[in-house]
């Protein structure tokens, strides 16, 4: 069912209130027990929180353009095994894609989850966001500035879908999938005339329980998405070309040479889930004698040891599922373009398997998928 969520006084800047009203109704109609939604703390920080009391949703900031972490991991934690609550999760498109991959990796379960996807106008990293919020609402210490900052981005995108503000996160500037592809409830912001309300698509039965009427929607969502995707794909390909050239000329060793091996990229990555990660295990606790041996045999040995082993192994493990959320780049204390490296290599590997990460839980993970006919084709060659 396609329906419209009305906005108070028909004002576009009140879009966040409209979405909040939809979330309240989800709790009131007992469609979900709790909602995982970005909330604003009394200090002005934006963090995901699990909310069960509709009255407390006044602090919800579903549109605040900031990304401090990929909430798909939390969606996995609250859904992975029974008994569990029915949870509604408000996610960005890249978080939805990561959730799809986590379901395939058996680190999340879609069974009792209601996914609420919102088209994304792009996000700032945490320091940039806090600085901008502070500037917008100096008297309130930056509190409540999220919706305004979002409205700026939305207006900018509506005026010119091709131009991404340069202070957005790099991953967002090169994000060619900023629209919701698959969710239980899709909040369709792209191309919508928000003065007439917020268009949403949701299952018929859920719409009835929420008391929504089906509405005909004019809108220009598809055209708008097409324009945004074209512009972002161009920006992405420019980065891919530059990075591929660097990788060809210098090699990944040089590109990631400043790595301090803090493992932040692994910690913030939504796909890197292994609880017995090799790099946290004792397998790579080398003995002092081993170090002495390396020094003697090789003449010079870089420490901490295994830096390239770490990156190459991580690439091997998760690059097929890389959804391009860019958390690794944000987490890197050395300011390395980790996300660009992973996406560039990821695109090549994914193309080999004709695989699009985060597209659908029906697509099996290529590394463990064997088709009956694959045998015949290859065996009969």
């Amino acid at each position, binding site marked *: 069912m396609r329906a419209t969520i009305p906005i108070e006084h028909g004002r576009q800047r009140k879009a966040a209130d409209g979405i909040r009203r939809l979330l309240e109704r989800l709790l009131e109609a007992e469609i979900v027990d709790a909602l995982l939604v970005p909330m604003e703390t009394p200090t002005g920080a934006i963090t995901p929180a699990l909310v069960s009391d509709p009255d407390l949703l006044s602090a919800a900031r579903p549109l605040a353009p900031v990304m401090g972490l990929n909430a798909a991991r939390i969606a996995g934690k609250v859904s992975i095994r029974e008994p569990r609550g029915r949870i509604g999760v408000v996610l960005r498109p890249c978080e939805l894609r990561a959730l799809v991959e986590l379901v395939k990796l058996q680190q999340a379960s879609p069974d009792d989850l209601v996914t609420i996807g919102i088209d994304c106008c792009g996000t700032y990293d945490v320091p940039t966001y806090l600085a901008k919020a502070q500037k917008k609402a100096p008297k309130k210490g930056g509190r409540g500035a999220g919706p305004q900052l979002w409205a700026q981005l939305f207006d900018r995108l509506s005026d010119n879908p091709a131009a991404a503000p340069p202070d957005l996160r790099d991953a967002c500037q090169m994000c060619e999938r900023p629209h919701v592809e698959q969710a239980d409830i899709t909040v369709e912001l792209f191309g919508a005339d928000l003065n007439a309300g917020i268009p949403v698509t949701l299952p018929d039965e859920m719409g009835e329980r929420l008391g929504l009427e089906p509405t005909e929607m004019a809108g220009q969502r598809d055209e708008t998405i097409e324009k945004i995707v074209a512009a972002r794909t161009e920006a992405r390909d420019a980065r891919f070309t530059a990075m591929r050239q660097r*990788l*060809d000329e210098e*090699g*990944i*060793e*040089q590109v990631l*040479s400043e790595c301090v091996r803090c493992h932040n990229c692994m910690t913030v990555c939504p796909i890197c889930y292994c609880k017995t990660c*090799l790099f946290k295990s004792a397998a790579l606790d080398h003995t002092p004698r081993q170090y002495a041996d390396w020094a003697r*045999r*090789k*003449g*010079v*040995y*870089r420490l901490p040891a*295994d*830096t*390239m*082993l770490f990156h*190459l*192994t991580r*690439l*091997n493990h998760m*690059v*097929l599922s890389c959804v391009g959320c860019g958390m690794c780049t944000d987490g890197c204390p050395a300011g390395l373009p980790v996300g660009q490296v992973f996406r560039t*290599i990821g695109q*090549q*590997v994914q193309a*080999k*398997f004709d695989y699009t990460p985060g597209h659908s839980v029906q697509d099996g993970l*290529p*590394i*463990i998928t*064997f088709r009956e006919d*694959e*045998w015949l084709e*290859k*065996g*009969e*060659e």
Partner: protein
Amino acid sequence: MSTDRRKPNWEPKIIVLMCDWCLFSELDRADLARVQAQPNVRIVKIPCLGRMDPMYVLTALQEGIDGVLVAGCHLGDCHYKRGNFMAENRIAVLQTVLETSSLKGRTKFAHISTAERGVFPRLVEEMQQKIGALGPIEEELT
């Protein structure tokens, strides 16, 4: 000849990761002996190529092995039915990743059948020539 990279008469060190089932146990003994007799080639038996963790390849290269040959049976011939399909997928990822690094061209994935006499020593020889042309693996600071 020497495997010391600092010597002018350097020769590459090669590791062969090989499926225990269809190759090692039944490969022509003469073929196997020709390879095993060489001091700078080591054969590591794996119960099945499905057990081939890309980490084996990466740690070998990190430890200064100049080239890694991964050899298993033809697709469809696997004793465990799909072990080499698994390996095939993993190798596809590994090789694309290694393409972007200085380890480019130092790995090879080959299908050999027990019926193919002479193929295995030839593969090893080709590998030695190829790696010999690439030179010793870099072990400096990267």
